């Protein structure tokens, strides 16, 4: 039975727009924080746990630091962690995936088996392992999350490469004498990047969450860096007296991750319109 396809005009995906707005807001805050913040990072002049009032718009934390300032720094750290991990995981993963995709049978099998094992190591355990071996820092967190992510990205890349290589136009191109590097640049990458991009966007959201978890456990960026995860951990004890401190970092965290996830969904809709109906 033929199902009539929807209107083919390229409507702007609402998910994409909402995602851009939410994630964009956090990015804007992070950029602003580079040039201007309401208070210096370690200014404790406001008194402890001050309620929201001018000049401390959102109040202060238990050390008297301005909450808004902390949130702005947190945005910077969350984005650094997210983008850093995705950059690391993406480069490592895509390289390994391409290698496995093109490799001979036994090399492919070896890489795949290694990836399976690496994936069996959940992100957070791997991150804890790296932090255990090095020390708690933003760099350790990025390294750990990026490494864990690279396995997932590599596995996806490998499957995508295999699928493209099985297509007829590759054979045609190879028969007409195109070299492998050119095949990769001209055929493989253009065919796999939309799916990869969507997946990397999803991974960005997961990376931000993982960094927050690590920071909450005290395994992320050490003080005085204000990571949202650590802000939440510090505010846990005073949640009834100063609820904003225990709520605001969580809310901005959710806004960023929802934004990034919607962005990924929207990108997927744009990249593959046939999926729009279902997911």
């Amino acid at each position, binding site marked *: 039975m033929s199902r009539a396809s929807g209107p083919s005009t390229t409507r702007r995906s609402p998910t994409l727009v909402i995602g851009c707005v939410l994630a964009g807001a956090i990015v804007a805050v992070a950029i602003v924080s580079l040039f201007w913040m309401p208070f210096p990072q370690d200014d404790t002049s406001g008194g402890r746990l001050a309620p929201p009032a001018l000049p401390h718009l959102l109040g202060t934390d238990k050390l008297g630091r301005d909450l808004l300032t902390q949130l702005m720094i947190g945005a910077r750290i969350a984005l650094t962690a997210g983008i850093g991990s995705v950059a690391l995981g993406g480069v490592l993963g895509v390289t390994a995936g391409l290698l496995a995709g093109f490799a001979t049978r036994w090399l492919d099998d070896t890489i795949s*088996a*290694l990836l*399976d*094992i*690496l994936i*069996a*190591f*959940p*992100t*957070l*355990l791997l991150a*804890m*392992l*790296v*932090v*255990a*071996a*090095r020390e708690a820092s933003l760099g350790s967190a990025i390294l750990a999350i990026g490494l864990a992510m690279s396995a997932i990205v590599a596995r996806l890349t490998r*499957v995508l490469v295999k699928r493209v290589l099985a297509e007829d136009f590759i054979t045609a191109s190879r028969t007409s004498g195109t070299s492998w590097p050119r095949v990769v640049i001209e055929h493989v990458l253009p065919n796999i990047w939309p799916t990869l991009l969507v997946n990397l966007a999803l991974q960005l*959201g997961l990376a931000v*969450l993982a960094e*927050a*978890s690590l920071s*909450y*456990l*005290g*395994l992320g960026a050490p003080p005085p860096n204000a990571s949202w*995860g650590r802000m*939440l*951990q510090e505010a*846990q004890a005073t*949640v*009834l007296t100063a*609820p904003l401190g*225990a*709520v605001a970092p*969580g809310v901005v*965290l*959710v806004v960023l*991750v*929802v934004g990034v*996830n*919607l962005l990924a969904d929207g990108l997927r809709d744009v990249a593959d319109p046939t999926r729009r109906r*279902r*997911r």
Partner: protein
Amino acid sequence: MTTYLLRRMAFLVVSLLLASMVLFLLLRLLPGDPANSLLSVGATPDQIAAARHQIGSDRPLPEQFVTWLGQMATFDLGTSFISTLPVGPEIASRLVVTVPLTLLAFLLAVVVAVPVGFVAAHRSDRWYGPLLNGVSQLGLAVPVFWLGMLLITAFALYFQILPAGGFPQDDWANPADALTSLALPVVTIALVMSASLIRYVRSATVDVLDSDYLRTFRALGSSFTGAMWRHGLRNAAVPVISILGIELATTFLGAVVVESVFALPGLGSMLAKGIAQHDYPIVQGVLFVSTFGVLVIGFVADLGQRLIDPRLRGTLSRRAR
């Protein structure tokens, strides 16, 4: 099936070996001698050498690895640098908290996600279908520890109907007490887990609702409910079961973090403490046991998938599509 079982078991063993090697190397090759944690600041070189000899970190790496592996295989997980107590029994006592926490949370997540995911797919044309979707989208973005904090605030601090954390000293001697202290952590993990599960269940249900075979049996006179029970459920279960292994492993991780939120004496808090104190035997032991658990869960999930899906029997590569 037997051939597959054997090959899959071989893969499990190789994975375990490789994983332990990675575990071992990462903790040994990176800077910082484990012996340092035995010593106070300003120890003499002699003392350092003695400490290194005591824990064996002066011997060649392969030798250390084999010794370590032999110990792991006999569940001799070494002794803590800090407390000098054996790691094995300590892990065992912590599993009494972590395993029930993980399993209960996982079960609750499945119990919540299956009907909700089904309704989200089946009733996507009603107002509550998209709403359920939106909620699960939100759930994917909520950090598990923050949800725990919010639940503690609401149910322990504000309404004061459940404990904010901790676990009975006598473990499960009084099951009601133990369950009460696990209630909030279990709900916390289950809510976050069900968010991602709902999406899988929903997508599997959409596939079934669109399927030709469901239409066939309806055309033969089956009621919608009857056809869903006999054919839909099993077909929808296949893709969901394939990710349950990963979900269970993720639930375990959720438990690791949530234990810190609720001050539960489980594996997670043991690991966090071990890392903070650079207590390598503790870190290695916990990671070894949890990796073992995750790999075995994957093994069981693969077998389960094969049992339910006749199309997979006879082929080895589960991702070959």
